[in-house]
């Protein structure tokens, strides 16, 4: 598939602070490419550099196979951006805002009208077209923000944390919308610090920390990079030291913690991890409650690589 965005060795410094440290990204046509990282990891800086809004110190950026520069208007016309903060005019109605931003890209009057209506339909704001932004709830405002960014039917859509401070219902609608845009042919770059969202919609993921890509691949590839294969949580009312130590010594167990009547075991890849533990507990007459087993998450990937939680 064609390369849509290629970022090579990007370096951005703010005085002594290195915001991007030789960042490399490759986004292919049709991808929903997730940039996952904690706040301050450099996601937004990377996006602003990609869009030629920010000067950078080193590296190169290509979009649609051409070098991206501030005056690359032929590239810009095919890009849509949905910013972290809502970027609309308070004095214009929902309809007028979408129409205005669409008219920055499209000249034909009838085409603008058609695309504006399609964007309104897409984000389901039909009942609010005459509303001013200040009258909209947070979720509706985010949808307006999205409509303003995608009305001109861009080939590449960049969404920078579009679900921050959004209620779960609106969040789901936004995520469904992104997947629909992708199905309609748009390539998506999606930044977030919510691993669940990235895990849910992204085909490829780059995990960023301190301005560097620390891991990238599909979610399965990323999870395969770490030693944890399974997380087992067992509710035990009284777990003695002997029991804990015995489980710790079992093959494939990586770590064990007992806290608040929950025994949490991280085990490596392999079969029958849970069965072995349950068998031991039964043999030793240890009463157990709920048993939960989970696959590792992207947070575990991040934790294992960086030694800290994604939300730190």
């Amino acid at each position, binding site marked *: 598939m064609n390369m849509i965005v290629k970022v090579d060795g990007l370096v951005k410094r*703010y005085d002594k602070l290195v915001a991007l440290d030789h960042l490399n990204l490759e986004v292919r046509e049709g991808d929903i490419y997730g940039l996952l990282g904690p706040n301050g990891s450099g996601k937004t800086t990377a996006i*602003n550099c990609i*869009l*030629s*809004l*920010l*000067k950078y110190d080193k590296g190169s950026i290509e979009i649609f196979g051409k070098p991206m520069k*501030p*005056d690359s*208007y*032929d590239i*810009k*016309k095919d*890009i849509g*951006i949905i*910013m972290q*903060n*809502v*970027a*609309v*005019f308070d*004095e*214009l109605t929902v309809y*007028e805002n979408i*129409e*205005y*931003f669409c*008219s*920055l*890209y499209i*000249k034909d*009057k009838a085409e*603008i009208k058609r695309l504006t209506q399609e964007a309104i339909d897409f984000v389901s704001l039909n009942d609010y077209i005459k509303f001013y932004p200040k009258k909209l709830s947070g979720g509706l405002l985010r949808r307006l923000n999205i409509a*303003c*960014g995608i009305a001109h039917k861009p080939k590449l859509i960049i969404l920078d944390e579009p679900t921050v401070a959004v209620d779960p219902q609106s969040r789901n609608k936004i995520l469904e919308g992104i997947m629909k845009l992708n199905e309609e042919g748009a390539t998506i770059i999606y930044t977030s610090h919510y691993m669940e969202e990235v895990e849910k919609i992204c085909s490829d993921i780059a995990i960023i920390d301190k301005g560097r890509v620390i891991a990238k691949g599909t979610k399965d590839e990323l999870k395969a990079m770490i030693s944890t294969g399974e997380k087992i949580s067992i509710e035990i009312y009284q777990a003695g030291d002997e029991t804990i130590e015995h489980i710790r010594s079992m093959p494939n167990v990586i770590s064990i913690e007992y806290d608040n009547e929950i025994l949490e075991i991280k085990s490596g890849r392999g079969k029958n991890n849970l069965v072995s533990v349950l068998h031991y507990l039964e043999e030793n007459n240890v009463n157990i409650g709920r048993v939960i087993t989970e696959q590792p998450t992207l947070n575990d990937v991040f934790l294992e690589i960086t030694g800290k939680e994604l939300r730190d």
Partner: protein
Amino acid sequence: MSFRLYRSRLKAIIRNKENVFWSYMFPLLLASLFYFAFGNLWNNETFETIDIAYVGIDNEADVLLEAMKEAKISEGTLLFNVVVVNKDAAAQSLENGEIEAYIIAGEEPVLFVKENGINETITKSFLDSYSQMLTLVETIMMNNPTAIEEGLLDDIQNFDTFVYEEKTGAEPEYLLIYFYALFAFTCIFAGTWGMDEVINIQADMSITGARVSISPIHKMKLLFSNMFAAFTAHIGSVFLLLFFLKYVLDISFGDSFLGISIICVMGSLAGLAQGVFLGIILKQKPAVKAGLQVTITMLESFLAGFMIADMKYIIADKAPILSYINPVNLVSDALYSLYYYETNERFLLNITILGSFTVILSFLSYLRLRRRTYASI
């Protein structure tokens, strides 16, 4: 320039209630305030005939008394209603409030008043003029005894026009300075709109600026379109104020509609250019920038005589360079010269400097605006 973008921007601008209030309503309110506060000062009808007593010298022809009887406020309205009485009766009448002053004749006439007020001031002023005139006549007579026969003193003795002849059709200069400075302030207040427009297209100043910077439209094209929308909105407020001052408050602006229109346009462009320039060079947050913009405009207006009319002359005398670089002063002075002078030299000088001011600030702004990437956002 895209008409669609212009129209959308104009809609957004005129829906900004705060800016519309300060541009459209505030000058009208201030003009009304000026009018009611100062308006009566040049209105003849507020002067009324002054009741006064005169204590003369027995059996002497009294030139002062005759002068008092002849003095008029306006055609058909006497300045004084004089009663000739003795000193005790005059003092009693003053005490009772029947008269406002009395004069005791003599080589040096003496004025008695009960309190200070406009009528007492006018009477004192009249008496001073009379004394000066008397000294002048004596001097002339001493140097040229035939002056009376030659008719040289006819005009000097004429007191007919003591008050109203001062008014030759023009409002007092100081009051025009207030109104012209208000008008100039309104023109330069376009800076508020100019600043908003530049903030709205700069990625490092606003989030909407970031969004439009990513679009394929050229920034200068968009700025031009937006500035034209701002100019349209602002020039409306200027002409509204002009209409209000000229036709509702009856303030004179002279007869040159073309000249006034040029001032309106050039003043508004200068204001917009100043706003854009300040928007670019000030590094503070938008609200702080807006506050500084208003403060600077108010300071320029103050120096142009907006609050104290004398300030215009003080600056012209002590720091003339400030008069030439202050856009508010240039606009008010252009109005002033259009009204008072028959030649256009001073008007053209003001307009030329104002145009240069606009071009220089626009060029400096362009140098900064043409940058399309930022060190930080």
